[in-house]
């Protein structure tokens, strides 16, 4: 545009500009939102509808069956066990990842030439496919040809053939080991960055005031990194809730149903047993509960941020 606009031209342009802006901003989010509704809203509604029906491997009964699926759901012991398995893994893995990640972050915090190299190498476990991670640990855990048993043998003084992925009391340690191995670097990276961002003046002032290192850490540093830690815990917690790949590679939910996570159980119900309506009920509940929990958590964090 060059040259001055006449009064009417300018007025016209302004109005068009405003209208075009409004049109623009909705136009531009339209395709993305449309696709998101596809995975956000559609599964929700569809699951709800199907969960009120009675479709399974044998019959395709699309008549309204009320809350039958949901009643079955609450009585399904295996479902609740799988939920328990999932929460157990989450409750153990999360704090360990946090603790080890924090210790690693503190180790690397002070200036250290070559640190970026270490960080790039340490992030690799987090970046490989979880299924590959599971497969790798399956190989490591092999009772005859895996190095883990070999190293254990060095410590024990005699050859060990520990059946990591088969014996009931070892499967959970195996899964936890693989999972913690893969995701501790995630915590480490985030905490390292958060610790680096703490205002140095605060720790300096505290030191001049006479506080010990311990006190400085707990009263000054921890509160400062808490917002970031909370988000990291939220992301990891949700990732652990949906755990599938690693367990699938190591035990496929076995032995029996001992290590079934809720995702694995749902998968089996849907794609092995073809209990369509039942699976839809589970899917619906999971979506609703998690959406509420996540939105609630995010809201709280946005406010404190």
């Amino acid at each position: 545009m060059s040259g001055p606009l006449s009064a009417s031209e300018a007025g016209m342009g302004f109005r068009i500009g405003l209208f075009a802006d409004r049109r623009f901003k909705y136009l531009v989010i339209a395709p993305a939102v449309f696709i998101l509704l596809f995975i956000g809203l559609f599964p929700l509604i569809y699951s709800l509808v199907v969960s009120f029906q009675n479709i399974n491997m044998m019959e395709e009964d699309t008549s309204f069956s009320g809350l039958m699926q949901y009643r079955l759901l609450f009585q399904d012991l295996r479902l609740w066990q799988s939920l328990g398995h999932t929460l157990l893994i989450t409750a153990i893995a999360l704090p360990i990842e946090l603790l080890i990640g924090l210790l690693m972050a503190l180790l690397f915090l002070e200036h250290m030439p070559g640190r970026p190299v270490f960080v790039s190498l340490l992030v690799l476990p987090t970046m490989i496919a979880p299924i590959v991670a599971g497969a790798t640990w399956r190989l490591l855990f092999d009772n005859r040809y895996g190095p883990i048993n070999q190293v254990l043998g060095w410590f024990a003084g005699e050859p060990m053939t520990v059946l990591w992925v088969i014996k009931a009391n070892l499967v959970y340690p195996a899964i936890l080991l693989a999972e913690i191995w893969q995701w501790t670097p995630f915590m480490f990276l985030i905490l390292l960055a958060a610790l680096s961002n703490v205002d140095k003046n605060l720790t300096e002032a505290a030191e001049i005031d006479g506080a010990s290192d311990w006190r400085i850490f707990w009263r000054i540093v921890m509160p400062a990194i808490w917002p970031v830690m909370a988000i990291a815990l939220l992301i990891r917690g949700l990732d652990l809730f949906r755990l599938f790949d690693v367990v699938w590679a190591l035990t496929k939910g076995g032995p029996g149903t001992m290590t079934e996570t809720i995702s694995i159980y749902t998968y089996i119900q849907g794609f092995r047993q073809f209990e369509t309506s039942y699976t839809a009920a589970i899917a619906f509940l999971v979506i609703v509960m998690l959406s509420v929990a996540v939105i609630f958590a995010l809201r709280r964090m946005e406010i404190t941020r």
Partner: protein
Amino acid sequence: MSGASATGAARGGAGEDARRRRRRRGRRRLAARYVAAILITVVFLFPIYWLFMISFKTPEEIFHSPPVWYPARIQFDNYAVLFRDGDVVTVWNSLFVATISTVLAMVLGTLCAYSLARFKTGGDNLAVWIISQRMIPPIAIVFPVFLLYVWLGWVDTYHGLILLYTAFNLPYVIWMMRGYIEDIPVELEESALVDGCTRWQVMARVVFPMVRSGLFATAVFTFVFAWNDFIFALIMTRSEITTYPVQVTHYFGAQSNFWAKIAAMSALGTLPIFIAVAFLQRYLVRGISLGAVKG
């Protein structure tokens, strides 16, 4: 009037020893930290090392008890097998699907992110809803989508899987790009608008160059997510389209496991990751923390 450095140097003699002691203590501390750092890195990298080593071993070396820690010779036979048998096409499938879905997600997502960032379209509610979509377990959403795909005939097709990946990665792209766009001062765009650009031109000429590195980092992360996915591929594909993660699980047999193939295929699938990480250096923390930390 000004400090006399001559007398200072003479006095410094006594302080020299204390300083040297302090330096030595500092150096010892640094050395200890390096030892710890190297130990930790070795522990974390060992499994990956092992995986790659198996891919280079002969069957005798693989099935050897006690295990062989370093093969006599690095040989690529296991990889050759994958190429001969045509299994390598799964890597190509992964590449194709991941790339296309990343491009789509980046284009649509960035546009959407711009609207959210500059116009606050939909306010907080829309933004929170969008990011919450990333947090829903895949298994919950994939089931009805699968049923829909059956009805549409989109199971085991490229476009079916691509659409699903695009949809699932959109929230991440939108969330991250919104952050990157918000980091640019608005004044630059306002100045361009006053100069007579349309919104589209502003996006292309002002915004795009400034978020280039954020775009790149987000694209790489999105690619990695799509590349690494297992569960969607497992459910949505049968025999026509197999991606490499699913292919790896095919090597786990009921009787015996094709260890060599597992390792070689996994290694092939992991190589792009290494390249990606090398490029992602600066944006690593921001990318994996969903922008919570601008490391």
